[in-house]
């Protein structure tokens, strides 16, 4: 299978900690891929309107780029990019009329055939690398590190694009076990962080993010892991405001799961770019667990 990597807008800026750790990990695991050199923002959220196709142009154009590189599959790191590309792909595969309209509209592009597979990096680790191979590649297992998987929405809803069952998600816990950490079961692992309401209704985002942190803390987690820059903002960068508002919630480190991957594979800490993390900026909780 020939694999392409679609970065998306945030991966080259605020979420370099997600990108650099993931790609270094993938190279270490010996997985070959090409990074798309021509791509555009996917639109960040899937448009839900049925009477309007214009917002499907952006995701589809990216799938055409994958097709032009003669790749069978594309993977993303950002959960929102995954959801937007995967849902657009499902829509045009289920609706030939929509695909025809979009292909006609983009008459300067080759037609999209519908055959590209859209994957998230976690799916890639599970289905292409395999947990066993990952386990045997681990040099510094994250012994005893209690981590709460945080799936958010985009990886697990709605069903046609879910990478793991949305009511009982397991993929991140399986990953954590493979790198030697201890997944902690929290009832809010699949709760939304408030997403773009960080702009529209910041109080709503603060409240639901507070709930996620509170539940993780009650379950005994030392850190949260996630895969979405939007969750990282609401749960990480906004954490000081959450801790200030709810006195029962203590500060908790927030990492991208790819940073755990890089540390467990024994890669240099500089690929983790902990300086971009928040609230903990040195990765100490994580690196202290790696033995």
């Amino acid at each position: 299978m020939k694999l392409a990597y679609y970065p998306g807008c945030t991966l080259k800026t605020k979420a370099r900690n997600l990108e650099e750790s993931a790609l270094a990990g993938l190279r270490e695991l010996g997985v070959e891929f090409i990074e798309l050199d021509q791509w555009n923002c996917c639109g960040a959220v899937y448009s839900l309107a049925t009477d309007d196709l214009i917002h499907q142009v952006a995701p589809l154009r990216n799938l055409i780029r994958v097709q032009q590189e003669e790749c069978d599959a594309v993977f993303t790191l950002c959960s929102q990019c995954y959801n937007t590309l995967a849902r657009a792909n499902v829509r045009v595969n289920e609706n030939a009329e929509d695909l025809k309209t979009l292909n006609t509209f983009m008459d300067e592009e080759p037609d999209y055939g519908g055959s590209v597979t859209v994957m998230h990096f976690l799916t890639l680790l599970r289905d292409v690398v395999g947990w066993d191979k990952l386990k045997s590649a681990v040099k510094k297992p994250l012994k005893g590190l209690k981590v709460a998987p945080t799936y958010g929405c985009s990886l697990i809803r709605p069903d046609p694009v879910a990478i793991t069952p949305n009511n009982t998600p397991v993929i991140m816990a399986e990953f954590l076990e493979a790198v030697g950490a201890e997944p902690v079961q929290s009832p809010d692992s699949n709760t939304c962080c408030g997403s773009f309401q960080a702009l529209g209704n910041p109080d709503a985002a603060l409240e639901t993010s507070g709930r996620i942190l509170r539940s993780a803390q009650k379950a005994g987690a030392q850190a949260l892991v996630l895969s979405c820059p939007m969750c990282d903002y609401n749960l990480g960068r906004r954490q000081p405001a959450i801790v200030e508002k709810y006195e029962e919630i203590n500060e908790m480190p927030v990492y991208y799961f790819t940073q755990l991957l890089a540390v467990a594979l024994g890669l240099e800490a500089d690929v983790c770019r902990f300086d971009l993390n928040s609230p903990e900026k040195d990765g100490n909780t994580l690196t202290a667990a790696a033995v």
Partner: protein
Amino acid sequence: MPISSRDIDKSFQNKVEEIASADFRRCMQCGQCTGMCPVVEQMDFTPRQIMHLIQFGQFERVSQARSYWTCAACHSCMVNCPRDIDIPQVMEAMRLLVLRDNEDQVHPNKLSPEQLREMPQIAFVSGFRKLTA
């Protein structure tokens, strides 16, 4: 408030159905959606009540609601709806009914310096996509 069939604004219902293929008429008012919604406490009407108001064609009341401006399109309601209704799509239809009249809900010049500095790109792209015309 008693509602008679004469009060049902059918053209409003038709508009919702044009934008969202989800069938709000199938809703049986069980309240699963409300139970799953992470931001319901910040809403004025619960997702179930929004469905109810649309079923009864109450455009005046539902057009004043804050609920769909608080909805994060997280799809938790939908995956648990026993009638398999795409509730987030109905919420989007309500947003679009207003946005297509050019009534923005967030204004870039009113964002705080902290928001502008700290927010990731996807927050701006997704927020402006869902909350502005």
